[in-house]
């Protein structure tokens, strides 16, 4: 397929990098990849001989593991570098780090950083494709892709779906990537959170925004609750966790006013009882574990397509 070639060799730094067609292509490839994970022998030879470096300059269990499993299920050689074992802590510049990684001839770099822009900069300094695995407050495109895959599985047609994103919109890379992608795919996005956590230009990022959770979720097909970084934000963006959960926690009572067959997503890790109540996490709406499963599938698809895959051989 000619359109496959369009992704080959490219980096995935922002959801802005992908057209609606390319997003759909990744999702359909991911659906095929997901089947591999259901097999008894969970391995395809597709990326045999390819080297993928997971460069994680920020703690992460879920995303790093997901990328590692994705690479291994496609038979790539996956190397993990974490911040503590990298030389960034020894005063090396990011450009030096990029040059050293480049010298080891990886075929693809997966980069996570607490600092916005690092995957982009690595993509400028290295010749191989770079996948952004979450950078600061900027973006987290593969999280958005797994969210979209999960939504698509349940809802089939995504166009026109009403989606509510709830929480710390200002600092969330998950929200930013999703607002870009979902508006591209024709979903109607409502952003909701404390006024201190809505970016000043939110009206350019989402169709609607409000600080009233009840209003935000009314009639929603999809509700996405975001993790609150309580360690960092308590006392400045909101007084305390108790007050946050009282005004902005997603509860079963809220869900009663959503559309029928509505679903709830959360990028994890969850602060149960803070941004989302346990009854919602465990309730009939929850597709949170499907998200984790789909995370492996979309990352397999992204690795596969960026590394030049044409017809999936699975």
């Amino acid at each position: 397929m000619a359109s496959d070639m369009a992704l080959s060799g490219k980096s995935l730094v922002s959801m802005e990098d992908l057209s609606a067609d390319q997003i759909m292509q990744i999702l359909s490839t991911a659906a095929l990849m997901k089947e591999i994970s259901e097999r008894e022998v969970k391995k395809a030879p597709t990326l045999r001989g390819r080297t993928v470096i997971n460069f994680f300059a920020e703690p992460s269990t879920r995303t790093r593991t997901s990328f590692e499993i994705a690479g291994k299920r496609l038979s790539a050689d996956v190397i993990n570098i974490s911040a503590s074992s990298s030389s960034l802590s020894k005063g090396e510049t990011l450009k030096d780090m990029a040059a050293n990684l480049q010298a080891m001839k990886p075929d693809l770099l997966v980069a996570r950083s607490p600092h916005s822009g690092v995957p982009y900069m690595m993509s400028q300094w290295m010749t191989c494709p770079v996948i952004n695995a979450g950078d600061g407050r900027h973006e987290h495109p593969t999280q958005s892709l797994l969210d979209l895959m999960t939504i698509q599985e349940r809802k089939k047609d995504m166009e026109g779906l009403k989606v509510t994103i709830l929480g710390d919109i200002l600092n969330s890379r998950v929200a930013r990537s999703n607002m870009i992608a979902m508006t591209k795919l024709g979903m109607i996005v409502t952003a909701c959170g404390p006024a201190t956590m809505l970016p000043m230009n939110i009206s350019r990022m989402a169709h609607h925004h409000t600080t009233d959770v009840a209003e935000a979720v009314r009639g929603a097909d999809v509700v996405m609750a975001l993790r609150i970084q309580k360690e960092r934000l308590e006392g400045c963006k909101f007084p305390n966790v108790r007050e946050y959960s009282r005004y902005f926690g997603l509860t079963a009572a809220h869900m009663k006013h959503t559309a029928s067959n509505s679903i709830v997503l959360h990028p994890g890790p969850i602060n149960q009882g803070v941004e989302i109540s346990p009854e919602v996490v465990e309730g009939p709406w929850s597709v949170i574990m499907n998200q984790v499963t789909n995370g492996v599938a979309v990352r397999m698809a992204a690795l596969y397509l960026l590394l030049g895959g044409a017809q999936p051989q699975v």
Partner: protein
Amino acid sequence: MSDLLIKNGHLIDPANGVDGPMDIHVDKGVIVKVGKKLAVQARKIIDAKGMWVTPGLVDMHVHLREPGYEYKESIKSGGESAAAGGFTSVVCMANTDPVNDCASITEFILEAARKASPVNVFPVGAVSQGLQGQTLANIGEMAEAGVVAVSDDGKCVMNTALLRDAMTYAGMFGLLVLEHAEDHDLTTGTHMNEGPISSELGLIGAPSVGEEVMVARDIALAEYIGGAIHFCHISTAGAVEMIRAAKKRKVKVTAEATPHHFTLTEEACRRYQANAKMAPPLRTQRDVEAVRKGLADGTLDVIATDHAPHAKVEKEVEFEKAPFGVVGLETAVGLALELVRTGVLTRTRLVEVMSLNPARILGLDRGSLPPGAVADITIIDPEVEWIVDSTKFRSKSCNTPFEGWTMKGRASYTIVKGKVVYKNAD
């Protein structure tokens, strides 16, 4: 020392109302005679045909990094960079290591400049000890040692009571406070201007009000105590408007603008370009227009570069970890001339804001060329085209956002005390 005749040039000397063809005869480092077609025999002659001859340019805001950060810049390299940019005098900020907050550091800087710098170096002393914003630095002894102003530049004097006392106390020694107006409570942890682009890039933005609340505070304070204040690097439309209104009320306020703030917008930060990161940050097109208008109508008095060298490796990091600042000495004339070409400034106004006004504000015996004056002279070729190539900079650092730009106009000769310290060889 041999005498020097600069002939066939177009002299622009606003203090003396001169804007026309005029020759200058210099001897023993001072101006001897200014007039049309001087019939003087001189040992050295510069033919300035087609060029502008101006009082030596004065940059009242640079960071020379010595002592303490000589890997970024030194008094020698910074002085050479200034000369190459057409500046005959630079005024260097106190945020060195150790901080220039006592006479011994001031003396060190002056001594190093005497030995190594081709241009005049006028040091600024700190307002507060160690730039800590707690207690007054030794302003009296620094005044005696030769500082020309006081400033905690790099940091705002957040403590309003301390600022009040600094203005009053420094005023006693005839020194002005140069204020870096920034409310750090609003800006700590920020990396560029707050707006749609910071949001898109996922960077925490510094709001324009972070500058404006401090400009408002300082104007109120100056008006109340009847003291003077000078604002460094004004970057927002709101700040320009407040200064304009304050001047109308005869508040003793002066202000400077940088070439990067009248040329670039926050768009330059896209793609995480660390060489577009400085404080105050690049703002919006509306702010750029306001700064230009302010320079044109007299609201802003001075063009100063805020030359802030940083080593290449310090900028080749995560945008959020990159230090604030850009070099500016060697690109200032080219960027300022663009304002003349586009009709924002007259050439007389250009010389006012780059030479006469900074000299007057700081009380330096520079900025004009009457007989008897120190012969600090800049000769500018306003037509020559050149391309910015930071590898050719005299500065030790190359952190410019103007790499690869085509500029029109640059200094052909920089003359300090009658001696040619720079001649453009390109």
